[in-house]
C-alpha cells in the first residue's frame, strides 16, 4: 500500500474516519486498558501477576467450567449445524426440506436474555420438558430433575447459536457446484458419505468462521449463566460482574477478562493454523 494511493483518496478516508475513531476509542482503547490492568497490583502499586493468582485461587473451577461449557457447546453447534445444513442441501423430500428450512431459523433473532428466560421455564424441574417426558411415560416423576446448571447453559447456547451457524453453512453449501454431488449420487454414494467426503471439505472455511464467532458469542454471554446457573460453579462472565459490582475489584475481573481473551485467541489461532496448513488463506 503506497502512500500516494492513500493521499489520493483522502476524501474517502475522511468519510471513514469518524466510524474508525468510534471503534478505536470505545472498543480498542478499553480492550487494551483491560489487558494492561489485569497485571496491575493496586494494593502494592506495581505490575505483577497477583490478580491472576487470586483469580485462579477463587475462580479456578469456574474457569474450567467456562472452558468445558463453551467448547462442548461449540462442538455440538458444529455437528448439528452441519447436519441441518447438509439435509437442507442434500435432502430429497422437498416438503421435509421446506419444513426444516422454516423451523430452524426461529431462535436466531431471539435475544440471549430472552432465550435464557425461555430455558429457565422449559428446563426447570416442573418445566415443560419434564412434563412432556412424564406424559409420554419416558420419565418417572421421582427421577425428574432440574437441568438448570451447566447443562442448561449448554442447551441454551446450542439452541440459540445453531441457526446462525446452520444459516452460514447452508449458504456456503448452496453456493457450491452441484455437479460433483450429483455425479457421486449417480455413482451410488450415500448422502451421508457425500456430505462428509465431498461437501464438508469445500465449506470448511465457513464452518470455521461460524464456529469461532459462535464460540466468542458464548464467551461474551453474561445473561445466560446469570439466569440459568444459581450459585456456583458458574461462568467467569458472572464472576467478572460480581467482582466489579460487589467489590469494585477491577484487578481480578480484568485477570478473568484476560483469560476469556486468551480463550478466544487460542480458538482463532487453531483456525488460522488450520488455514495455513491447507496452504490457502482462511476466508
Amino acid at each position, binding site marked *: 500500500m503506497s502512500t500516494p494511493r492513500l493521499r489520493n483518496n483522502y476524501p474517502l478516508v475522511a468519510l471513514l474516519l469518524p466510524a474508525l475513531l468510534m471503534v478505536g476509542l470505545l472498543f480498542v482503547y478499553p*480492550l487494551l486498558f483491560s489487558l494492561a490492568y489485569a497485571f496491575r497490583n493496586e494494593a502494592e502499586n506495581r505490575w505483577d501477576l497477583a490478580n491472576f493468582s487470586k483469580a485462579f485461587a477463587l475462580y479456578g473451577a469456574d474457569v474450567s467450567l467456562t472452558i468445558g461449557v463453551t467448547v462442548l457447546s461449540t462442538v455440538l453447534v458444529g455437528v448439528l449445524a452441519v447436519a441441518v445444513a447438509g439435509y437442507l442441501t442434500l435432502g430429497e423430500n422437498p416438503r421435509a426440506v421446506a419444513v426444516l428450512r422454516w423451523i430452524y431459523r426461529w431462535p436466531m433473532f431471539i435475544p440471549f436474555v430472552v432465550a435464557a*428466560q425461555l430455558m429457565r421455564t422449559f428446563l426447570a424441574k416442573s418445566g415443560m420438558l419434564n412434563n412432556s417426558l412424564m406424559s409420554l411415560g419416558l420419565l418417572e416423576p421421582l427421577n425428574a430433575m432440574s437441568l438448570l446448571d451447566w447443562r442448561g447453559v449448554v442447551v441454551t447456547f446450542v439452541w440459540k447459536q445453531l441457526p446462525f451457524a446452520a444459516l452460514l453453512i447452508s449458504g456456503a453449501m448452496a453456493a457450491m457446484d452441484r455437479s460433483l454431488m450429483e455425479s457421486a449420487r449417480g455413482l451410488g454414494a450415500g448422502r451421508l458419505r457425500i456430505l462428509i467426503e465431498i461437501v464438508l471439505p469445500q465449506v470448511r472455511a465457513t464452518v470455521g468462521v461460524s464456529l469461532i464467532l459462535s464460540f466468542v458469542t458464548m464467551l461474551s454471554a453474561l*445473561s445466560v449463566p446469570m439466569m440459568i446457573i444459581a450459585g456456583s460453579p458458574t461462568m467467569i462472565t458472572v464472576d467478572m460482574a460480581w467482582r466489579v459490582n460487589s467489590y469494585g475489584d477491577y484487578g481480578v475481573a480484568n485477570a478473568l*477478562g484476560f483469560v476469556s481473551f486468551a480463550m478466544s485467541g487460542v480458538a482463532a489461532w487453531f483456525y488460522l493454523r488450520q488455514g495455513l496448513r491447507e496452504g490457502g488463506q482462511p476466508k
Partner: protein
Amino acid sequence: MSSREMCLSETSRREMSLRNFPLRHAYVPPMTGTFVRFALIGLFAAIIFGPLLNMLIWTVAEAWYFPAKLPQRWGFAFWTKVFRPEAGAMKALSASLLIACMTVALSLALAIPAGYALSKRKLPLRSLFLLFFLLPQAFPTVAVHMNIARIFYSFGLTGTIWGVMLVHAIQGLVFAVWIASASFAAIGDDQVEAARNLGASPLRAFMTVSLPLAAPGLMASAIFVFLISLDEFSGTFFVGVPDVRTLPLTMLNAALEGNYQIASITALLLLVPSILFMLFVERFLKADVLASVGK
C-alpha cells in the same frame, strides 16, 4: 442357523408364502424412511418451539403450581400488573425504545459515510478497515464493557442514556457499516456517472442517486441496529447502572425474583420485534446485497 430353526422355518414356510404378505418388503423401507424423517423433524420442532410455547403459557398463567402440567388458572391478570406505572416495565420499554432510536441515528450517521467509502474498491487497505469493524464481535465483550463503564465514569457518562447509547452503537456498528457498504456497492457506477455528466455535484449525485438506491439496505441495517440495541444486555448492565433500566434488565430482575409471569411477558415484548424482523428481513435485504456483506 440351528437345526431347530431350520425345522421351524421349514414348517412355517408353507404358511408364510409370499402370497400371504404381498409387497410387504417393497413398501416398508420408504415408509420407514418417511416416518423416521418426520419423527426427527417433529422432535426438532418440539425442541425449537417447546421453550417458546412454555413462555407463552406462562404469560397467561395466573396460577401454576408443581406438579400440574398446565396452569390451574388462566387469565391476563399479570398483563395489567406489568403495564401499571409502578411496575416499571413501561418506563423500561420507553427507555429501551428511546435508546434504540438514538443508537440507530448515531450508527447511521457513522455508517453511511463509512459504508460509502468502503464500497469503493480503490480505497487502500479496504479489507483491513472492514475487518477492523469486526473487532467488537471478535472479542468477548464483558471485560471490555466493564472497562468502558470505568472510563465513562470519569466523563460522567455512566448511568446516562448517552453512555448506554454509545455502548450499543459499538456493538451494532459492524452490521451497520458492512450492510451499508454492501448496499452502496450493489448500486454500480453507471447511474452516478450519468448524474455527474449532467452536471450534478458529487454531493448532489450522492443525495439524489446513491442514497435513494441504497435506502432499502440502509433500512435493513437500521432495523438490525435497532434490534441489537433493544436486546443488548451486558453493556447496559455495566454502563447503565444505577439509573438506566432497559427492558432486558427489567426482565432479568423479574426472573431472578422468581416472578415467572412478569419475566415471560417482558420476554414476549422483546421477542415480537425480533420475530417480525426474521419473517420480513428478506423484503429489505435483497439477495445480491446479502451476498456481498463483509466483502
